[in-house]
Structures are given as C-alpha cells and as structure tokens.
C-alpha cells in the first residue's frame, strides 16, 4: 500500500507542480501576482473540449492547440490590463486589483455562457487505460501529466539557462529598469513570458481536466489556493522550487490522508506554507536576498 500511496502522491504532486510552474514563472519575471492565471487553466480545458468535440480534432493536437490559444489569451490580457499600468508606474496593488477584476469578469462570463455544469471529454476522444506493474497502478492521463511536467521543466530550464532569450528573461526578472537600459526589449520579453505562462496554465487545465474527467468554469479558481501554497514553499518565481514543492506537497498530503487522517489533508499545504514563511521566508530554494521595498 505504501508504494501505491507514494505513487498517488507523486501524481498529485505533479498536478500541483504543473499548475504552479506557469504561476511562479509569471511572478518571477513580471513581479505580479497575476490572478487571471487560474482562468487560463479553465480556458484550456474548455478549449480542448471544443476542439475535440466541436471540431473533431485529435486529443493530442487539441492539447497543443489549447496551450497555444491560452498563451495567446494571456498575451492579450497582459497587453490590455497590465501594460498600461506598468507604463503609468502604478503601484503594485493596482496590478493585483486589475487581475482580480478581470478574474471576476472572465469566470462569470464563462459560466454565464457555458453554464456551471460539469462537463467531460467524451470516451471516444479519450479513454484512460490503466497499467499495472509490481502491484502499482497508473493511468494514461497520469503518465501524461508526469511526462508533460518533465518536458516543461526541462524546456524552461533550457530556455532560461541556455538561450539568449533566457538571458533576457533572467535580466528582466533581476531588474526591470536595468534590463531595459541594457537594451533588452522588455515588451517582447513580457509577451513571451505571458505566452509561456498562459500556455502552461492551459496545458495543465487540459491534462488535469482529462485526468479527473471534470471540466467546469471555476476549476481554475480551486487550483489557485494550492498554487499559492506551492509557490510560497518553492519561493516566489522559482521554477525548480515550484517543482520540488509541488511534489513534496502532493506526497505529504497523500501520506497524511493515508496514514494520519484525511481531515488533515488540506491543512498540510497551508501548514507547510506558513512554516516556510516562519523559517525561511524566501522559500525552500529562494535566494537569501529579498528585493528591497
């Protein structure tokens, strides 16, 4: 049973990590808590539903397309909402507030349009197949989540560490003004980061919607709270941190539910997050220098 529980934990952790990656990326580079992130998650799932059911596209292609479209939405939303605020040098709180209003707008528009019924991908589009190995059980969708997570993490690692674009992204994350002075096109980098983050959010939405087979407009909002916990534990803006913290949270939640008591399961996340803030406010992997106020 322990083996299966650990596997359950890793899969759940991968779900958390996958969701948190885009969230932490957008914070790390653009320095904004972008609450619309949860919306890309929901939007991705609905788009995949539309592509497969409405247009008859295959699941894998739909997954990719959904990621691209949500990435595009993220770029547009950033341009409409946050760029004007950046230009006006509005206080940090204003950006938080604007994404908040936008979240309210987008979710309610979505539920007014689609209704709040739970939807599912039809079995002919995607059916989970289970694999058994050494008494452990895993499903196709779970494997897909694990694989996607590994691909995205290594892709982001390669992009930020090995490419010129990555250098620009890191420079912008380090110090926006200095990066601009050094001739980096901050607008372009912002768009690329928004695209990546929105795309990751959308992909996560498709995969997780597929795994639990329940797609509804507010699914992204449910993920946000766990996303916050993971991002704090890993350190705001830290990709590797989000990965490790996500996996850790998943495993600890599962073990808590399996061996201590399931009513404590949800307390684990915020318990750990609060503990992190007490002991090491920059997160498990955050660098010790905190940005001066």
């Amino acid at each position, binding site marked *: 049973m322990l083996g299966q529980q650990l596997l359950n934990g890793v899969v759940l952790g991968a779900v958390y990590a996958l969701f948190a990656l885009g969230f932490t990326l957008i914070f790390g580079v653009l320095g904004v808590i972008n609450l619309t992130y949860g919306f890309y998650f929901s939007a991705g799932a609905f788009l995949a539903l539309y592509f497969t059911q409405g247009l008859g596209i295959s699941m894998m292609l739909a997954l990719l397309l959904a990621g691209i479209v949500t990435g595009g939405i993220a770029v547009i939303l950033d341009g409409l909402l946050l760029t004007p605020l950046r230009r006006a040098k509005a206080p940090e709180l*204003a950006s938080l507030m604007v994404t*908040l209003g936008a979240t*309210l*707008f987008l979710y309610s528009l979505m539920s007014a349009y689609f209704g709040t019924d739970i939807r599912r991908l039809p079995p002919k589009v995607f059916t989970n197949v289970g694999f058994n190995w050494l008494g452990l059980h895993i499903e196709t969708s779970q494997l897909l989540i694990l694989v996607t997570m590994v691909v995205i993490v290594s892709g982001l690692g390669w992009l930020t560490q090995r490419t010129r674009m990555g250098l620009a992204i890191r420079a912008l994350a380090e110090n926006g003004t200095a990066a601009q002075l050094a001739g980096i096109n901050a607008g372009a980098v912002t768009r690329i980061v928004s695209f990546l983050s929105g795309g990751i959010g959308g992909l996560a939405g498709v995969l997780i919607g597929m795994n639990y087979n329940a797609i509804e407009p507010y699914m992204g909002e449910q993920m946000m*709270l766990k996303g916050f916990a993971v991002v704090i534990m890993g350190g705001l803006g830290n990709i590797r941190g989000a990965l490790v913290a996500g996996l850790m949270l998943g495993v600890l939640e599962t073990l808590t539910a399996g061996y201590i008591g399931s009513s404590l399961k*949800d307390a684990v996340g*915020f318990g750990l*997050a609060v503990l992190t803030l007490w002991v090491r*406010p920059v997160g498990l992997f955050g660098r010790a220098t905190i940005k001066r106020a």
Partner: protein
Amino acid sequence: MSAFFANLLFTYQSLIYGLGINAILGLSMYVVLAIGQLSLGQAAFMGVGAYASSLLSVKLGLSFPVVLVAAAGVPAMLALLVSVPTLRLSGVYLAIATIGLGEVLRLFYVNWDYAGGALGLSGIPDRGGFFTIFGTLALLLAAAFAVGRSRIGRAMEAIREDEQAAGVMGIDVPRYKLAALVISAAIAGIAGAYNAHVTAFIAPGDYAFDNAVTILSYALLGGIGSPLGPVFGAFLLTALPELLRPLHDYRLVLNGLIIVSVVIFMPRGLFSWHMRRIGAAK
C-alpha cells in the same frame, strides 16, 4: 407615511446594514493599506470576530457589549500572533501568508464540532441595529480622521511611501506595522460580529479568499487617499450587485468590468482626494 419608511427599511434592511458593515470592513482594510501593507486576512479576522461573538451569544447568552469586546479582542490577539513572522515579510509575502491564515481557519471551523462544524452556527440572536452599526462607522471614521491628522497619520503615510526613510525620521516602523495589523483585525472582528448578529447564521465558508478579495476591492476602488475612500468603495460595491440584479447571469461580469476599468483609468481609486495630515489650523 412612517409605514412607508418602515416598509422601505424592512425591504432594504440587510442591504442598508450591509452598507454599514462593509464600510467598517473597508476601514479595517484602510488601516493596513494606509501603512503600505497588503493583508488578505481581513475576512479571516472578520470570521474570528463573528465566531467568537456568536459563540458567546448563542452558548453563553452574554450581553452584546461584552460580546463585542471579545469580537474585537480575539482577532486582535490572533493578529498579534500572526504578525510575528509576517512583519519581516514585505508586500506580496504578507498577502499570501494572510490568505493562508483564512484557509487554515476555515479548516479549523469545519472540524470544530462545538461551533457547528461544517453545518455552521445558526440561531444567532438579532442584536445591534441601524444605530449601532452606523454609530460605530461614524465613530471609526472620526477616529480615522483624528489619527490621520496627527503625527501618527503622518508616520503611517511616511511608512507607506518609503519605509526606510520613515525609519530615519525616528518612526518605529515595526511597531506601527504591528499596531496597524492588530487594530485592523479588531475592527474587522467587530464588523464580523455585527454581520453574524444580523444574518442569524454563519458558516465556515463565509470568510474565505473571495471575501478577503472583496474587502480589498472596497479600499482599492474607493482609493486610500483618505478614510472616506474605502467607505465610499464599500458603499458602491455593496449596492452594485443589488442595482445590477436585473442582469442576472451577467451581473458579476459587469461587476468585474467596473473594477478593471476603475483600476486602469483611475488607478488611485474613484475617490482620490487626499486629506490634510495636520491637526491644527494653518
């Protein structure tokens, strides 16, 4: 004629009470924002005030003034505990830490059978009315103005603008931050008690993240140039859902649109008047 007003007051009673209570919550948010801190724990503190006061009313039958002392005191104590680690944290960390507080408390209420657990606490006596709520609001507003127009108000604004420079002015920044969080928690707790005692029923989910965000939006919509901003913002955002009722499903859509437009086009809030921070005539 008086019957007409009696009817009007009956019909819109909870809306009118809601205006007052939410304005108090807006002020509690103001106290923190005015010092440049972002707390998303106001809903949590409101919940602690609501639970503390309701339990004393329902289980022990204590009188309302006594209950109110607890409604202010318990959240204030909690704020004191919470602020130990969070004072070291700046900006977004404090915000996220306080979100965590709300979530932890929700789970606590859910598992606390004495307080009704997930079923919530019903049968809370109807206490405090129009005059209690709006009297409190008036008192708090007067206090906010009095404090704002003194060295304390100047120190708060200094901390909001530049923490380090404020320290160099001889202002004990950590103490101010601590006091602001504790006082704002006490104010939110009182609002929670009023809310619980006019709606008769409270449940663990009433003080979650959404509500924290709503309270924040009162202050941001109204602006924090003066205490009137959050009050004005609370009035508007409380009345808005009622005014927009005929829109049904698209009500929240418009609500969101309004918030977005205000922030983009009027980043200092709708009510951007700055109060004078000197407590004597020129």
